[in-house]
């Protein structure tokens, strides 16, 4: 049965009048800040966003560089094809696979993510998101330690001590400093930066150090030791001065930070992948979460991972509400199982376990280890992406989709788990990820005869 998606002409005629218009309070989906105060000036003749008021340097590039209407609707084995034909090819690959994986999902809407989970469930496959190579270790730590949390609005209005650890928001999330923390003026910090103390902890002095009152430089791979020493100091235990030899941080510096943390009114630890991508991984995140938890005996303290992609937090939420787990989920037994290291994408690819992949809005071909990329090139791969990527270049089926936030509406989650509604500014000739995934889901269902593969484990059990 046809997916019933008809591709329009790629170049549409511009309206005769009203060459430019302004879309107010649109949402930028470049990073996890998901700033929803963009005022976009749209030129309907050139089909471009010519101005993005309130955007940071990354947001301006995100909107300005949007202009991809000359890409083919799809490629099958490198041959140009329509979306419908590509959907059929994608569905065939997924229905025939014995152990398929669906991966990516952090740069698309929650509505599309939901469809992807449904497909994974139907085909008894594996589903994982870019969280596994981002704050996946923090996700594991949340389960083990718990999370003292807050919205960015609470941080803006209340935090008088901000500790950024293992991240460089000045370059990765520029408006985190100006809109939500550091310079932002809030209800209980009316003078903005003057009412706050800002600490940066990192292994190198990044541009983020410019806003910090205190910069603490840690030796590489010694974050855990520093965090554990702080836990001890907060609890009043003695710490050996030799800690400086191990970590590069003087005991007096740690004592000062511990005292500031206990004395503040509202403290926030905001941490990046400097903790999760290095030795210690989830133990590092867990130590930081435990420190925040400890501090709540003395004051109000929260910990928040600074999330990268625009809807990676939505991916965690959708996966959690659909399967019970945030990433790395296997559905081959007919029920969800979560096991990082076993059901996470790098592992499945590097071990050569999976025999087909559907990659949505991600580029593992550029950012995975070579052993994983090598396997990705051995198996049939379906890619949904607005742009040509290292992954789509080698895909068997590459489907061009419209860009979320710019041309597609829907829901995304800010890094603090606050859902926001998108306000797209430009129409696109390409279908959304959600539309394509719905059609793939429908076609896979037909190919499987309406059932799921394999049948749920309990179906074969005698009563």
């Amino acid at each position, binding site marked *: 049965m046809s997916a019933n998606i008809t591709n329009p002409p790629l170049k549409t005629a511009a309206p005769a009048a009203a060459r430019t218009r302004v879309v107010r309070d649109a949402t930028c989906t470049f990073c996890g800040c998901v700033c929803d105060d963009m005022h976009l000036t749209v030129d309907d003749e050139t089909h471009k966003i010519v101005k993005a008021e309130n955007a940071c340097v990354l947001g301006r590039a995100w909107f300005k560089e949007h202009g991809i209407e000359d890409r083919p609707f799809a490629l099958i084995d490198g041959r140009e094809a329509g979306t419908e034909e590509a959907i059929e090819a994608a569905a065939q690959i997924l229905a025939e696979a014995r152990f398929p994986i669906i991966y990516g999902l952090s740069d698309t809407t929650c509505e599309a993510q939901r469809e992807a989970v449904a497909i994974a469930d139907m085909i008894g496959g594996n589903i994982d998101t870019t969280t596994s190579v981002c704050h996946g270790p923090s996700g*594991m730590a949340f389960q083990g330690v718990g999370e003292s949390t807050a919205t960015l609005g609470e941080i803006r209005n209340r935090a008088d001590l901000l500790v950024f650890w293992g991240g460089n928001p000045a370059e*990765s999330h520029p408006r985190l400093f100006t809109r939500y923390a550091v310079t932002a003026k809030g209800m209980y910090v009316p003078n903005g930066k003057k009412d706050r103390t800002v600490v940066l902890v990192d292994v*190198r002095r990044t541009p983020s150090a410019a806003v910090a009152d205190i910069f603490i430089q840690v030796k590489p791979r010694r974050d855990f030791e520093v965090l554990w020493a702080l836990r001890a100091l907060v609890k009043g235990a003695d710490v050996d001065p030799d800690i400086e030899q191990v970590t590069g941080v003087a005991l007096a510096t740690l004592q000062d930070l511990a005292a500031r943390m206990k004395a503040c009114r509202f403290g926030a630890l905001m941490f990046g992948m400097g903790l999760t991508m290095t030795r210690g991984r*989830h133990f590092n995140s867990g130590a930081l979460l435990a420190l925040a938890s400890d501090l709540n005996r003395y004051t109000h303290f929260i910990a928040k991972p600074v999330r990268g992609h625009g809807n990676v937090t939505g991916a965690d939420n959708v996966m959690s509400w659909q399967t019970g787990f945030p990433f790395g989920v296997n559905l081959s037994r007919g029920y969800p199982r979560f096991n990082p290291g*076993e059901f*996470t994408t790098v592992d499945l690819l590097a071990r050569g376990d999976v025999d087909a992949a559907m990659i949505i809005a991600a580029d593992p071909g550029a950012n995975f280890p*070579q052993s994983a990329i090598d396997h990705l090139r051995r198996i049939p791969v379906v890619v949904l992406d607005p742009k040509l990527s290292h992954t789509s270049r080698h895909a068997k089926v590459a489907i061009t989709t419209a860009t979320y936030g710019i041309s597609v509406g829907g829901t995304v989650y800010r890094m603090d788990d606050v859902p926001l509604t998108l306000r797209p500014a430009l129409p696109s000739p390409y279908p959304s990820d959600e539309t394509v995934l719905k059609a793939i889901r429908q076609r896979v269902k037909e190919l499987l005869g309406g059932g799921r593969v394999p049948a749920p484990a309990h179906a074969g059990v005698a009563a």
Partner: protein
Amino acid sequence: MSESMILIGGRSSSQGTSLCAGKLGAEYIDVSSTLEMNVEDMARMGLKDNDRVRVRSAVGEIVVRCKGRAAKDLPSGLLFIAYGPLSSALMGGDTAGSGMPLSKNLDVKVEPAA
């Protein structure tokens, strides 16, 4: 003669902006193939800005251009490169049961490339 150093992969402003133009674009390729090094380390190794260096990890090898950073910003023995296909080529596939391959603080050997 190669030296042992520690490589940090990460984001940068120019990596983020060039990403929007496309990972196959010239700017992204340029940004993600530039290695930041401590200037004193560079001087000791006879390197100057834009010289080519070979970086080897346990699993891969890349050749990139180097660019000096002041010692106060990048301590001796540390290297920084923006995320991209080249930084990924140095990552191993073992995640130690976590799903996360090590992509920061990698042990590497660095030497001038002919």
